[in-house]
């Protein structure tokens, strides 16, 4: 049994000596959110210089609010991308969620909570369907959710027009349950003299939760594994299908959440809204260091990506520039982020033998 034990100097301890410990800078660079953090600081300083209205606590609160409107869904989209999938339907799903709540409650004259619950069920069902179709058919999630995206876009407009006769829902602020729901999803509170939106708190909470899940739980381990190497994850017993469907449903849950915010902030929803936002979520995730190919990224990075989005979209206005430049800026950010990601991936997969 153990006759081999003496002659076995297994492995190659010799390799120990020719592996070098990386310097602090290199190790820091290998963290997913570092690129985004540096970018956020540089952009922040830049706008503090060129856009004087930005230099106030009030502006910061507004920027945080703007960031949170994208950031809440972006966190889920980031997790989904770490899990190796895309969701292009997330933008219009936000609108679908709001519409279902408003129209259902208004037409049946029911408490808004009932509509909100139904809307949640609908959103989760769409998320489940996205995930189920991707896993069952093996077709790229890019295509499946592109389909869902168009279906929802059409249904949003078609149903709203048919039921209400216009492209927006009726005002719901006199209905039962409004004040409570408004408090949960769209209230503001005072910090000193500054009004802060409740969504900022929700956003921080979701980011913290996502970060915990990704780095400190079993499910988080599985998310990285299914995104990094699905076949390998399956072979060691990770329930790949459950993990991925769960991720799609997380996206749809937070899309529902943002939909609720939109509805209770403006009391009405435009049926054509949300188109294009799916790309903002993806950009926030990628700028935050999430690999497009999956298996790498983190929640804090995605939050920083969302913050860069919020800061830039408002500061371009504060600086008195034509807001149309914003999109061009986002494009440049995305390209830079992809380049940084590519470099980072090389850094962490290549063998660094000195």
């Amino acid at each position, binding site marked *: 049994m153990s006759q081999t034990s003496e002659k*076995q100097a297994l492995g190659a301890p010799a390799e120990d000596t020719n592996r070098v410990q990386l310097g602090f800078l290199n190790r820091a660079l290998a963290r997913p959110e570092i690129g985004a953090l540096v970018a956020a600081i540089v952009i922040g300083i830049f706008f503090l210089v060129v856009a004087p209205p930005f230099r106030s606590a009030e502006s910061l609160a507004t920027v945080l609010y703007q960031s949170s409107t994208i950031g809440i869904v972006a966190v889920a989209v980031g997790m989904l991308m770490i899990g190796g999938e895309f969701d292009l339907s997330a933008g219009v799903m936000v609108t679908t969620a709001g519409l279902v709540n408003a129209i259902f409650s208004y037409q049946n004259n029911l408490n808004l909570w009932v509509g909100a619950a139904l809307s949640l069920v609908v959103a989760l069902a769409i998320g489940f369907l996205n995930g189920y179709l991707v896993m069952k058919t093996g077709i790229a999630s890019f295509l499946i959710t592109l389909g869902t995206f168009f279906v929802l876009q059409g249904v949003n407009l078609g149903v709203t027009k048919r039921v209400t006769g216009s492209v927006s829902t009726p005002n719901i602020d006199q209905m039962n349950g409004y004040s409570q729901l408004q408090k949960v999803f769209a209230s503001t509170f005072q910090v000193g003299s500054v009004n802060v939106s409740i969504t900022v708190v929700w956003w921080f909470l979701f980011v913290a939760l996502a970060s915990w*899940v990704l780095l400190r739980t079993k499910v988080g*381990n599985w998310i990285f594994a299914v995104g990094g190497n699905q076949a390998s994850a399956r072979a060691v017993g990770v329930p790949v299908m459950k993990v991925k469907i769960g991720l799609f449903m997380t996206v749809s849950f937070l899309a529902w959440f943002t939909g609720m915010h939109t509805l209770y902030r403006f009391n009405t929803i435009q049926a054509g809204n949300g188109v294009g936002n799916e790309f903002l979520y993806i950009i926030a995730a990628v700028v935050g260091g999430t690999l497009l190919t999956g298996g790498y990224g983190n929640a804090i990075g995605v939050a920083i990506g969302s913050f860069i989005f919020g800061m830039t979209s408002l500061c371009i206005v504060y600086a008195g520039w034509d807001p149309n430049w914003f999109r061009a800026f986002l494009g440049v950010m995305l390209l830079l982020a992809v380049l940084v990601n590519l470099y980072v991936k090389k850094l962490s997969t290549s063998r660094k033998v000195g």
Partner: protein
Amino acid sequence: MTDTISEHADQSLHEGEALVEMKEVGKSYGAIRALRGVNLTVRAGEVTCVLGDNGAGKSTLIKIISGLHPHNEGTLKVDGREVHFSSPREALDHGIATVYQDLAVVALMEVWRNFFLGSEMTTSGIPLSALKVKDMKRIADEELRKMGIVVKDIDQPIGELSGGQRQCVAIARAVYFGARVLILDEPTAALGVKQSGVVLKYTAAARDAGLGVVFITHNPHHAYLVGDHFVILKLGQAVLDRRRSEVDLDQLTRQMAGGDELTELSHELQR
């Protein structure tokens, strides 16, 4: 290090005991028969080598044992009871672990996360409860060290390790989590001479610890170094099935290189 393998290996394993028995097993994918009438017995403390050219049915065979694809002909028995796996998890629960050549590990994940992937230690059974990160790192590092794999930093992505080391981590992981049957899918195919040696020693160590090992390869030299029993597959059927005492390396090599076909070919090509 053999001691550590023995430590974790199932104590109830008896050498020579049949762990997995396949009788007349076949598998078709639609109209294509990838495998038919294969008999294979994996015994504790033995290395069963499955050799064959590309497309001979090696992959199909291990996919059946490891639970990736169920068989549709014949019987598969584990510990004497007939089974029909529908997922790798089921096979793992029966103590059958597979180490794949190219998909053994998740390259971008840390070594310790890879080591515990699918069998993570958590502080409680509640969903989203914390991982025992410190314990997991310590155990992974200790186990790998005992087995002669020294990683500078247990936090480094496993993609930074050499191919041989990655295979060894995957094998160490399977043994640590109580594998009784270890299936190695072309573990040496992508490796250099030295790295192959490391993996082969490791295979022998697992065998000595009493595990049943299935060693898939198309390299008869590697197979002959560790094998106790040899099966050569060709076009989905077994063309040779012998114990070590009944066959020598020349025969194996000849069969692998094409056997009679090779003789025919040499006649045709004669100048």
